[in-house]
């Protein structure tokens, strides 16, 4: 198979994974107006959670079943303890507080799981892969992750477009006051959205764990790349996050092939270019 095609495939698959993490960030930012620097930490906790839960249950998908609700509850606790104090505050104070959370979570990770890298097993039924060239195999688990991400994206579309919760989320994005005036407690909405964002980040961390292996600081690159995706897509837009994530994934993969020396700048250059052409991101309301 053509090398460029394989790279595109890799880029899309990587993009799908960052979409998972970025979608939670864009929801939290778009609806609650909170800049959450600790989003990468929830990804990290998801990955480490996967390590423990897989050891316990023996299967990453069982870990997912237990881990996601746990992450949701954890999100509620964090919102109640810290985040709810920030809604009337300056963005800068949100930055400071969520940065402090990173410090705490990183240290907690070290105390709970130690500093050695670990790997999380791929379930036996997903071992191996599809042969796509003479030497190259595309692993089943990567295909499964891509499919899972697409399924989750479709589920999110369904939830947001077709369910009552989704209606409230969409309404909250455009007119919070009216949501409150119609009898929906916006404090609960915020708590739910934050917890959902945490659960999404953790989900990304869990499904990525067998791919990424698990090591300290695993959440930081994801944080930065998620912010880039959110900004490219337009703040608050899940659709934008999806397109942005795929764009970034592909740009990153192609950048590594064609501009290896500057490949870490490619995504930033892309973001700067998008913002100069469309100051509100691809699907955002103008800033």
């Amino acid at each position, binding site marked *: 198979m053509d090398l460029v095609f394989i790279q595109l495939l890799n880029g899309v698959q990587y993009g799908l994974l960052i979409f998972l993490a970025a979608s939670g960030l864009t929801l939290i930012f778009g609806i609650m107006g909170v800049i959450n620097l600790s989003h990468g930490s929830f990804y990290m906790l998801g990955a480490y959670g996967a390590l423990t839960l897989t050891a316990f249950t023996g299967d990453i998908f069982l870990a997912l079943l237990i881990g996601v609700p746990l992450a949701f509850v954890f999100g509620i606790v964090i919102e109640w303890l810290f985040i709810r104090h920030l809604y009337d505050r300056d963005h800068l104070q949100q930055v400071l507080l969520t940065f402090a959370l990173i410090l705490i979570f990183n240290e907690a990770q070290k105390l709970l799981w130690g500093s050695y890298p670990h790997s999380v097993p791929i379930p036996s039924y997903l071992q191996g892969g599809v042969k796509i060239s003479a030497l190259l195999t595309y692993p089943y688990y990567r295909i499964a992750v891509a499919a899972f991400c697409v399924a989750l994206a479709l589920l999110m579309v369904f939830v947001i477009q077709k369910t009552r919760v989704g209606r409230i989320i969409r309404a909250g994005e*455009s007119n919070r*006051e009216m949501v409150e005036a119609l*009898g929906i407690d916006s404090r609960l909405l915020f708590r739910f959205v934050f917890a959902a964002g945490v659960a999404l980040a953790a989900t990304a961390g869990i499904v990525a764990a067998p791919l990424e292996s698990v090591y300290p600081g695993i959440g930081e690159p994801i944080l930065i790349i998620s912010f880039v995706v959110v900004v490219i897509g337009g703040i608050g837009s899940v659709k934008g996050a999806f397109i942005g994530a795929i764009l970034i994934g592909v740009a990153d993969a192609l950048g590594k092939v064609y501009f290896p020396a500057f490949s870490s700048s490619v995504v930033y250059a892309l973001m700067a270019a998008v913002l100069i052409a469309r100051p509100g991101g691809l699907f955002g309301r103008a800033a």
Partner: protein
Amino acid sequence: MSTPAILAENINTHYGRSHILRGVSFRVAPGETVSLLGRNGMGKTTLLRTLAGLVRPSSGSIQLNGAEVTNSRASSRSRAGLAIVPEGRGIFPNLTVEENLTFASRANNKGERPWPLERIYSLFPRLAERKHHWGNELSGGEQQMLSIGRALMTSPSIFLLDEATEGLAPKLRDEIWATVKQITQSGIAAIIVDKNLNDLLALADRNMIMAKGEIMFEGTSAALRADEALIHRHLGV
């Protein structure tokens, strides 16, 4: 004397340094329709928003159907039976007409739904025609209908209507007024703010005029009509 639907006592509301409501007190009986009149900037909208819980008064107390709500959130007032159709309509642009309507559909505390979706659609057939359109695809009049319909679907016992006919063509206004009449006659307590004196006086059991953040006049439509000087001073040219 029965428990008033709304009992407001000595409400003061500030926006920053500006003192908008200055000691407003009044009551609205269950099922009563009250008009709220006055020129722009006199505090009518602020009063409605204060009643709905969208603005916190700096002092005073508010009771709805006998329950103290001064410090409760807008959402809990809504669930207690208060509905507001705000100035600007507050339509959710990224929800369809039907989603807007069913957004907060709920029964009242007796478990009844006096305004089910079918009734709203028969009240405003145009909404039924456009039920799959997005909120921002509607004309001003349709948005107004949608906002009223959405409020009714919360099965309210108290209904606040702010500038429902603003910017609408005369024919549409008539349509809106006809519906509002049906609503007020259904036993809901209502406070209605509007510029169209005639329509209001025809509808209201009682009228209040606000000026400079205070209620200057309370009385029946007949009493108000009789006082041409008052109308001239606060409402006319």
